[in-house]
């Protein structure tokens, strides 16, 4: 990127809420089912049908509002956004225009170890549209699947506070992580649970913001990064060539890696917003707002800070754990209830556990591992009941099968020998068999110590307590 320029990015993020039923009817809110099976007269917009608001949607949105430090508009309304499209049966989308449920918030993101605050303009509730299906077998027509009609959405609009694609990515990752902490969205990107529109402009540093373009059809966070980078280059090239950037809506084509113009400002839809007369004003009492606030768990940014400042984890490790709600909850259980050492618990999570999850494609909840068991296992290692190597063997079993650890240690004969007299006898034997090493140690070659301890461990088939073994050898070499 040309250093003279700065890019300005704002994001409009849509997240599908994981409520049981749809926003305005009692159809189930499900993904991946047979086309047009979760539909009813209401979400198909048959004449005479009326919407009724699913109150859970309001609760979920208010939770997100709290998590993003927003002001909650306890009294707000819903509006109709009118436009024709075959995936929109009513020919209007029920959304919120001038009074959103939540507004004026912020979220802190971490980019390269630095914290940055991104303003949140607003969060409003609305309904999703259906899906058009195009295929050559339909002989020139397109078909429509209305299962998604009425799936509840929140639209989270950011201020134009991001200055790089990396910041945009970190912002999106943070939103995703918060949504999963609140348990209000499935966050399955491949199913379109989170989608975003990207607003990009460029300007020379020290000059006012440039004209922005809005990019649609951005279906993954990595596509957002590619789209932003393409768009900033395109706009800078235009300005450098003496052209102007046209205010327009563009479509991101991820396969080709380009954005193409969809419509200019002149062709922009006039959505003719007006208050939805079929629904009452939303009025949430203060008590409910406070109750929802009390339900907000510790969020990733706070967790990262706590892990680093109080538990002494490296920032990178803290971030990886905190951004994944499953890992974080597991970690907190191990360290808080179980009293496991945070560093050791983190090492397990980022090491063997993550490796297992990556290899099997499972989530933590799908394994047999529980924080209790992990804590128990860590305890055996810390108390030297078993060696770290034995601990890894047991881990491999208990991650896949529900077996008691104590019994595994016994059955597999993994208990370490910590009996002094037994270890001393072993040391005597090994020292006697390795005269040359003993001599070279005494001549100052200290690395012979490791060899001798290793020989003891080998002779004990790994069961000797390595710490005690080392002390005994040292003592005997000093005699």
């Amino acid at each position: 990127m040309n250093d003279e320029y700065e890019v300005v990015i704002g994001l409009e993020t849509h997240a599908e809420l994981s409520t049981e039923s749809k926003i305005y009817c009692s159809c189930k809110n499900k993904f991946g089912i047979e086309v047009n099976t979760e539909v009813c007269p209401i979400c198909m917009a048959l004449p005479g049908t009326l919407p009724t608001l699913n109150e859970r949607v309001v609760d979920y949105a208010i939770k997100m509002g709290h998590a993003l430090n927003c002001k909650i508009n306890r009294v707000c309304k819903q509006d109709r956004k009118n436009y024709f499209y075959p995936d929109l049966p009513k020919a209007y989308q029920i959304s919120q225009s001038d009074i959103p449920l939540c507004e004026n918030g912020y979220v802190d993101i971490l980019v390269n170890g630095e914290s940055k605050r991104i303003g949140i303009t607003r969060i409003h509730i609305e309904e999703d549209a259906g899906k058009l299906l195009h295929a050559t077998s339909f002989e020139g027509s397109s078909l429509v699947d209305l299962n998604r009609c009425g799936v509840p959405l929140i639209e989270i609009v950011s201020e134009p506070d991001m200055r790089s694609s990396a910041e945009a990515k970190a912002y999106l990752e943070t939103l995703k992580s918060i949504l999963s902490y609140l348990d209000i969205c499935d966050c399955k990107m491949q199913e379109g649970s989170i989608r975003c529109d990207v607003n990009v402009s460029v300007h020379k540093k020290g000059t006012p913001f440039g004209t922005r373009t809005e990019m649609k059809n951005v279906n993954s966070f990595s596509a957002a990064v590619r789209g932003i980078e393409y768009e900033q280059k395109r706009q800078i090239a235009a300005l450098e060539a003496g052209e102007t950037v046209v205010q327009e809506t563009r479509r991101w084509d991820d396969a080709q890696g380009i954005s193409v113009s969809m419509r200019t400002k002149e062709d922009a839809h006039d959505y003719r917003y007006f208050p939805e007369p079929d629904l009452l004003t939303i009025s949430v009492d203060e008590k409910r707002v406070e109750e929802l606030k009390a339900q907000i768990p510790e969020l990733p940014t706070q967790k990262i800070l706590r892990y680093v400042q109080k538990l002494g984890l490296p920032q990178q490790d803290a971030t990886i754990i905190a951004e994944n709600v499953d890992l974080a909850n597991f970690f907190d259980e191990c360290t808080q209830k179980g009293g496991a050492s945070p560093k050791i618990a983190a090492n397990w999570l980022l090491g063997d556990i993550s490796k297992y999850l990556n290899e099997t494609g499972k989530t933590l909840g799908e394994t047999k591992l529980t924080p209790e068991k992990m804590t128990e296992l860590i305890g055996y290692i810390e108390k030297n009941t078993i060696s770290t190597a034995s601990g890894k063997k047991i881990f491999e079993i208990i991650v896949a099968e529900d077996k008691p650890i104590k019994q595994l240690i016994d059955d597999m004969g993994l208990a370490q020998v910590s009996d002094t007299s037994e270890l001393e006898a072993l040391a005597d034997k090994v020292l006697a068999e390795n005269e040359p090493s003993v001599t070279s140690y005494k001549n100052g070659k200290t690395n012979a110590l490791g060899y001798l301890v290793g020989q003891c461990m080998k002779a004990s088939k790994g069961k000797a307590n390595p710490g005690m073994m080392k002390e005994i050898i040292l003592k005997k070499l000093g005699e």
Partner: protein
Amino acid sequence: MELYEMTAAQLSEKLESKEISSCELTQAVIDRINSVDGKVKAYLTVNAEEAIEQAKAVDNKRISGEKLPKLAGIPIGIKDNISTKGIKTTCASKMLENYVPPFDATVIEKIKASDMVLLGKLNMDEFAMGSSTENSYFNVTHNPFDLDKVPGGSSGGSAAAVSAREAIVALGSDTGGSIRQPSANCGVVGLKPTYGSVSRYGLVAFASSLDQIGPIGKSVKDVAMVQDIICGRDKMDATSAVREYTSIADSLTGDVSGVKIGIPNEYFGEAIDDDVKTAVMNAVHELEKAGAKVCEISLPSAKYALPAYYIISSAEASSNLARFDGVRYGYRAKDYTDLVDMYEKTRSEGFGSEVKRRIMLGTFVLSSGYYDAYYKQAKLMQRKIAGEYKAAFNEVDVIATPTAPFTACKIGQNIDDPLKMYACDICTVTVNIAGLPAVSLPCGMDRSNMPVGLQLIGDSFCEDKILGAAYAYEKLIGGFAAPTL
């Protein structure tokens, strides 16, 4: 007296005492339809076979000693914009010519639960837009008092059917006067209930914030009895009021002494025909003689109600009618080149000119740059008008006005003059704008022997007061005249 000439209240007693059966009654009404509907043309669909089946089922229940609701076995006609499962619901539009709903409107569920017999579907102005029923895609309905005249609208079929004794009672819908004005034109009683008292679920929406389903009958008591059935909180309609209802029919005493009736001078101006004024004031004097207290009141913003009404109702209609796009149900144009062409041709061909006029008007007033000047102003005016009514009801129990500025017009007289047609609603729209209940009842004839309507307006959920006064008037004059056909 023929069975079809009787009121629901009278028939209810005969059915309960097993003097007559619902089958006999239903057959008598169907025979009446067969004999006069060729002239009146009130029905779009007659549900004869199913109606007889339903009547038999009710009779069987009664024979087996089951305790039945009051109006069990009474045949009722339904305006064709109220969804009836398995029966075409066309809104008198080419757009929905063959549309059969897969569900019943909440009011139909209630009618069925009350064991009333569904006679058929009644003609109307297309999508309830109009004041003469001339905007029906299918046919014009004729006024039973003078077949050369319109029955009013938009519930012209409902009012004409009751007036011509082709239905014992009927349901209509009222967005700006569509129950009351045709009731006045056809010499029957029509109630527009308080907004939120009757569920709109299943009523094909015209203007959501103004639409209300209501009953039409030959007598005040009949209207009260049907209202008792159809009112109530419905969780399918977010705008339905959360409250308990007591029977209005049981509250009717015929005593009007001490009831305060307000006369707003704004409703007796130049636009109102002299015969209408005279008939309405005569009726008010009858009530005064019977003990009512009459006083003049003022509703200064009433004159802004008509423009506010046409802005708000058209705006909502433009959005409500957008779903008729040819994609999923209803009419679709035959030849088109692409999606936009399909939309344009479908909607150009499927809607009649009055509906298109309102959609264009509504689209305009909601457009960016015009919203504040029109829609927002109209909503502000709505609040002001509602406030003036509220204030008036601190002084009086009932407000009496003409229902319509003049009696029924000749067929074709106003059809090419939308403004003149819109003026028919001048006395009724304010009530919808303010969300209030109002009843229209016959109060005599004009010089050409056409019925004049008296409108009694009440405060929210005070249907008992306006129907109480109406019932008293009906008693005083000994009942309402029927047309000769």
